[in-house]
C-alpha cells in the first residue's frame, strides 16, 4: 500500500532542507555580528534571541528590532535574511501546493479514500462495474432493499452523476480502469462481505475480462455480466458466469412478450418489480400487421422475436444498406407522414417507435397517432431524463431498456429461485398467466408483490425443521397460517417448490413439506415478517399445528402438568 504521507515527505525533501539551511545561516549571522544594548555597551545576540528574531522575520510578522535597536551591521544582515527567508518559504509552499495539485497524487489520494471506505463496509455488498442508466436503476433498487453496492467506472463524468444521485445508502465510487485486476481487488472483490460482481460496462471485452477475473479471484462470488453479441455471451458462459444478460435480446423479448402474450408480460413485470413500485395494468394489443421503426440492434432483435411469434411487421429504416434490412423495407426515418403512409399505416394495428433517439421516437408517436388514431403505440425510451415528455405523449406502452435490465438483475440478485420460476413460466400459455395474475392481484395492494425464497432448514425455518425431524408432517399451507388466528391465512401463496432436482410450478397447498425444500413465495408487500413468526418460533408453530397454546415458563409448565394429573 502506498502511503500518501511518505510520498509527500519525499517530494518535500529539497524545500525543507533549503528552509533549514536559510534559517540556520541567518541565526548564526545574528549570533556572530556584534551588537549594542540601549546603554551603548557591546552586546552579542545569543541563539535564543536569534531564533526568536528569525522566526518572526521569516514568517513576515515583523515585531521590530528586538531586544535592542540594531547596529548597521545587523541591519545589513537582516536585509539579506529577509529576502532569503521569503524565497525559501515561497519555494516550500509552492512545492507543497504543486504536489497537492499533481494528478498522480490526487489519484493516489482518491484511491486511498476509496480503499478505506471499502474496508469499512460491514454489510454484504455488490461490486458494480460500469455506471450508466441501468446501473443507476439497479443501485437504487438494491439500496431500497437495504443491499449496499460499490461502483467502479472509467469515465469521470459518469461518476460525477453518481455523486449527484441521492441514494438511501451511500455508494462509494472510483474512477478507474475496471479491466485491471488490481482495481477489482481495490473495489473489494476479495472482501469477505462482497457477495457478487455485476459487469455492466457497454463493452463486451471489458465485461468478459471482469467476469473472468472475478471468477478466478473469488470463485464463490455470484457473477452477472452483460453481453451484446452471442459470441461474447458464449465466451462469458464458458467459465461458469452465473447469469449473462443480453440487453437487446432481453428487452426485445420482453416487448415481443407484451405484444404476443400480454398477461405473461404483466406477470413478468410484477414478478421482477422493485420495492414500492406501483403495479402496471394488463394491456391487450391487437393482432394484425405492425410497423417497426428503426432496424438497429434493438429493431433486429424485436423483428426476430415478432417473426418467431408469427406477427408480420413492416420495417421503416433510414439506412437499410448499412443495417442489412430485409426486402420490403421502407426507407425513411418514420418521423414524417409520407414514410408512414408508404408503410401503409392505415391498415396497421400498431407501431413500435424503436430508434435510439428519443426525439425521433416521440415524433413518430405523434405523427402516427395523427394518421391513425386507433393505433396501438409502443415507444422506446432511451434516457430516463425524458420520462416526463414520454408520459405526456401517452403511448400505450413505454419501455426503457435500462429499467428492464435493471429489474431483471435485481430479481436475480435478490431471489435466485425466481429465475427458475420465470424459465418454467414462459413455457405456459397466456391463459395460465392470466389466472395467476388474478391470484396475485387478489393478495397485492396495488404495489408490486414481494417474492422471496424460504428453505426448510435450520437457518431459514428452524421451527419447521425441528417439527419435521420429530415426525410431524406440515403442508405448504402451514407456512403462512396467520400466527394468531390459525383458521386464517396470510396473503401469501407458493409459486415454485424445488425438491432435490425436481421443480413443481405452483405446487398444491396441501403438499407435505420435506427437509431442505426450497419454496418461492409470493405475498403482499411487507407481510414477510409476520410469516417469520411461524418459521422461527416453536410455540407459534405448536399453536398453528394443534390449536392449543403451550405453557412456556418452567413454573407454568409445572402448574399445567399438576392440573392435568389431578383431572385424571
Amino acid at each position: 500500500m502506498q502511503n500518501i504521507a511518505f510520498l509527500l515527505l519525499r517530494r518535500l525533501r529539497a524545500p525543507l532542507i533549503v528552509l533549514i539551511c536559510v534559517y540556520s545561516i541567518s541565526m548564526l549571522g545574528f549570533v556572530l555580528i556584534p551588537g549594542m544594548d540601549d546603554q551603548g555597551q557591546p552586546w552579542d545576540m545569543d541563539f535564543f534571541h536569534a531564533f526568536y528574531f528569525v522566526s518572526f522575520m521569516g514568517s513576515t510578522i515583523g515585531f521590530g528590532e528586538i531586544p535592542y535597536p540594531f547596529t548597521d551591521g545587523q541591519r545589513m544582515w537582516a536585509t539579506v535574511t529577509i529576502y532569503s527567508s521569503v524565497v525559501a518559504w515561497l519555494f516550500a509552499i509552492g512545492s507543497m501546493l504543486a504536489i497537492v495539485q499533481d494528478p498522480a497524487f490526487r489519484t493516489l489520494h482518491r484511491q486511498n479514500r476509496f480503499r478505506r471506505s471499502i474496508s469499512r463496509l460491514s454489510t454484504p455488498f455488490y461490486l458494480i462495474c460500469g455506471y450508466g442508466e441501468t446501473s443507476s436503476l439497479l443501485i437504487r433498487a438494491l439500496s431500497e432493499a437495504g443491499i449496499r453496492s460499490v461502483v467502479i467506472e472509467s469515465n469521470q463524468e459518469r461518476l460525477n452523476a453518481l455523486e449527484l444521485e441521492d441514494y438511501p445508502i451511500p455508494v462509494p465510487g472510483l474512477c478507474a480502469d475496471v479491466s485491471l485486476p488490481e482495481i477489482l481487488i481495490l473495489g473489494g472483490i476479495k472482501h469477505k462481505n462482497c457477495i457478487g460482481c455485476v459487469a455492466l460496462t457497454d463493452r463486451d471485452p471489458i465485461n468478459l475480462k471482469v467476469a473472468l477475473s472475478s471468477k478466478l479471484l473469488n470463485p464463490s462470488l455470484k457473477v452477472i455480466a452483460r453481453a451484446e453479441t452471442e459470441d461474447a455471451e458464449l465466451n462469458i458462459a464458458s467459465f461458469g458466469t452465473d447469469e449473462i444478460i443480453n440487453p437487446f435480446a432481453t428487452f426485445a423479448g420482453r416487448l415481443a412478450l407484451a405484444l404476443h402474450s400480454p398477461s405473461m408480460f404483466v406477470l413478468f413485470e410484477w414478478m421482477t418489480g422493485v420495492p414500492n413500485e406501483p403495479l402496471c395494468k394488463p394491456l391487450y394489443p391487437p393482432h394484425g400487421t405492425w410497423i417497426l421503426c428503426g432496424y438497429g440492434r434493438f429493431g433486429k432483435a424485436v423483428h426476430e422475436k415478432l417473426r418467431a411469434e408469427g406477427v408480420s411487421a413492416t420495417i421503416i429504416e433510414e439506412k437499410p444498406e448499412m443495417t442489412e434490412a430485409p426486402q420490403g423495407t421502407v426507407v425513411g426515418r418514420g418521423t414524417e407522414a409520407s414514410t408512414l403512409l408508404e408503410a401503409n399505416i392505415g391498415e396497421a394495428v400498431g407501431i413500435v417507435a424503436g430508434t435510439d433517439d428519443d426525439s425521433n421516437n416521440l415524433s413518430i408517436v405523434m405523427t402516427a397517432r395523427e394518421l391513425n388514431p386507433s393505433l396501438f403505440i409502443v415507444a422506446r425510451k432511451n434516457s430516463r431524463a425524458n420520462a416526463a415528455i414520454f408520459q405526456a405523449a401517452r403511448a400505450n406502452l413505454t419501455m426503457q431498456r435500462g429499467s428492464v435490465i435493471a429489474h431483471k438483475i435485481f430479481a436475480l440478485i435478490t431471489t435466485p429461485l425466481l429465475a427458475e420460476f420465470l424459465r418454467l413460466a414462459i413455457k405456459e400459455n397466456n391463459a395460465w398467466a392470466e389466472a395467476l395474475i388474478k391470484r396475485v392481484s387478489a393478495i397485492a395492494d396495488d404495489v408490486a408483490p414481494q417474492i422471496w425464497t424460504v428453505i426448510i432448514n435450520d437457518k431459514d425455518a428452524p421451527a419447521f425443521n425441528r417439527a419435521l425431524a420429530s415426525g410431524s408432517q406440515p403442508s405448504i399451507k402451514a407456512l403462512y397460517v396467520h400466527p394468531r388466528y390459525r383458521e386464517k391465512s396470510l396473503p401469501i401463496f407458493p409459486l415454485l417448490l424445488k425438491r432435490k432436482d425436481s421443480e413443481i410450478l405452483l405446487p398444491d397447498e396441501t403438499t407435505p413439506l420435506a427437509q431442505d425444500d426450497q419454496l418461492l413465495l409470493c405475498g403482499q408487500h411487507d407481510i414477510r415478517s409476520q410469516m417469520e413468526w411461524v418459521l422461527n418460533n416453536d410455540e407459534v408453530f405448536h399453536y398453528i399445528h394443534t390449536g392449543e397454546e403451550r405453557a412456556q415458563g418452567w413454573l407454568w409448565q409445572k402448574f399445567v402438568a399438576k392440573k392435568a394429573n389431578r383431572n385424571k
Partner: protein
Amino acid sequence: MNLEKVVFAFFILLALTLNFGFFLGDIDVPHHHSVYELFAAIVVSLIATILKFGDRTHLGALLLATSLVADLQLILAAVVWAFAEHITGTGMTPAVMAVIVSLSGGALLANITSVLLLVAETMTVRS
C-alpha cells in the same frame, strides 16, 4: 559511486561527530561545551532527518526513528539551555550543564545506532 549516497552518509556521520564533539569534556564544566557546536549538531541532525524522509523500507523506517530521537534529545537540550539563561535567570550552573550534556549523550547513542545501521546496510549490499 553514487552522489546521493555520499551526501546521505556525510550528513549522518557529521551529525554523529558534531554531537560527539559537544558531548566531549567534563559533564558539569560549562566551558568544555560550546553553544555553537550544539547549534551545528541540531541543524545537521535536522537535515539528516529530512534526508531519511520517504524511504519505505524497513531499514529506512529505523533510520528515520533514530534520527527523530536524536532531534528530540538535542532540541530538548537547547530548550533547557535557553530556559536556564533567559527565563529562570539562574544562569549557566554546573547542574544545568550536566542536564544538557546528558541529554546530548542520549542523542549521541541514537546517532551511533544510526551509523551502525548505515554500515550494516552497506555491508549487506556491497559484500
